[in-house]
């Protein structure tokens, strides 16, 4: 295992070193010490490596991730795993606002709570939150799944498209055009797989499913006067 002291060696050196890892690298396991809330730790990775960050991170940790597994052993700042393409990001603590924003793929697992705007404009990522999510989560979500084992804040799924939201606890309010939907067997199967991937011991039957009522993004001739 490779150990990298972020405080001693600096952010640019860290990200350059991680970017230099090819698909076939033998250095597959990395440990970053002294993150101390620094910004942009392990962004833009594109190799099947495992990066363990020993502490809490600041803005944009693991942004634009491809292939890599980034594991934050602490809490994460705003924009964690933003625009992730593939791979896995795990946050042991809480994640600040807009975690997983615009994510195209991969899995983001938050073991604590996620703050506001979790999964905003997500485009295919799977986000599994063991705790609660804040207000405006999944705003304009396009595709992918969010699993919330706790409660969701105000305006969940406002103006969403074809993303699915599974919430075990309460939803403070649903956003425009977001409704509760029937949980069919294929959703139970999907949710069971997501819960297992996220390491959650919750039962799929305890969740409700929410998604788009599809009245906002489809043209409706009765609304023509509004345009």
């Amino acid at each position, binding site marked *: 295992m490779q150990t990298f002291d972020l405080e001693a060696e600096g952010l640019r050196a860290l990200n350059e070193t991680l970017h230099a890892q090819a698909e076939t690298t033998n250095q597959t396991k990395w440990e970053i010490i002294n993150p101390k809330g620094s910004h942009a730790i392990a962004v833009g990775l594109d190799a099947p490596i495992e990066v363990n960050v020993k502490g809490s991170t600041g803005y944009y940790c693991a942004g634009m991730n491809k292939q890599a597994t980034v594991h934050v052993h602490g809490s994460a700042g705003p924009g964690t795993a933003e625009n992730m393409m593939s791979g896995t990001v795990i946050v042991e603590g809480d994640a*600040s606002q807009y975690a997983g924003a615009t994510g195209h793929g991969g899995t983001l697992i938050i073991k604590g709570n996620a703050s506001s705007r979790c999964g905003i404009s997500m485009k295919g990522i799977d986000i599994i939150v063991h705790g609660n999510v804040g*207000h405006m989560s999944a705003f304009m979500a396009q595709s992918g799944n969010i699993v919330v084992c706790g409660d969701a804040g105000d305006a969940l799924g406002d103006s969403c498209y074809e993303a699915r939201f599974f919430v075990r606890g309460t939803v403070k309010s649903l956003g425009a055009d977001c409704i509760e939907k029937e949980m069919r067997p294929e959703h139970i199967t999907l949710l069971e797989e997501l819960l297992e991937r996220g390491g959650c011991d919750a039962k799929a039957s305890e969740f409700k499913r929410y998604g788009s009522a599809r009245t906002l993004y489809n043209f409706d001739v009765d609304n023509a006067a509004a345009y």
Partner: protein
Amino acid sequence: MCGIVGLFLKDTSLEPRLGDMLTDMLITMTDRGPDSAGIAIYGEEAKGCAKLTVQSGTPDADFAGLEVALADHITGSVAMRVKDTHAVLEMQADQIAAARAALATLRPAIRVMSHGETLEIYKEVGLPKNVAERFDLRKMSGTHGIGHTRMATESAVTTMGAHPFNTGVDQCLVHNGSLSNHNSLRRKLRRLGVHIETENDTEVGAAYLTWKMQTGSTLGEALESALDDLDGFFTFVVGTKDGFGVVRDPIACKPAVMAETDQYVAFGSEYRALVNLPGIEDARVWEPEPATVYFWSHNAAPTVTEKAA
């Protein structure tokens, strides 16, 4: 973008280190606000006395013999401590109004930064590190303090545009964000007779809170009504003689992190401002909820309601 730091000590043995810890926190937030910096510190109280912290662009001329000149206009004596462009004038608490009136004639270029029994506010244009050095912030002790690093968006980079703002006796406000209805609110408050000096948005926020409290609100109530009357983005941290409070607008896009241990409650715009505090590894760390007033006081149990304020 701006940076806010705050530290409220529960453990009195840390009081001599307050300035040192706050200075480190402030300097860490330089990236969020490199154009000006300021600090409000709640230090020692002298019974029956109050402090005016004043600032001058020409301190050598303005502060020379000021305590003697001022003593001629008020009852009792005046003690003066000069720190760079600032001076702290201590006098009998009931002489403050007379002293302010006298200052306006004696030294018209002097601006009052703060009025309080324990509060002193120091702020200047420049990098936080340089501002901290000029005022020797590291050596200051106290029960609690709030610091701000400014990246100006709404008005000019000047000393008077820097934070904290004094909102009343021993009260101060710092702000991260931008208020969008500050022009109309400024006009309204001026019509009501409230003095607002600059075109700065936060000064309007501070004047609004002062006006609410002068018309019968507690600080907690004033902060609650700020949620209705102020339009825009804000994370506010307010200081009082006994404690400090935090409130974020309902959208809450301006960041805020809090940490609490048996020894302190700390606020930072980002977690990295808190990383060198003692025992941070085991602190309870969380994000304050939007549209919720938090308050910590030496006189009451921690609360998330306005009751303690």
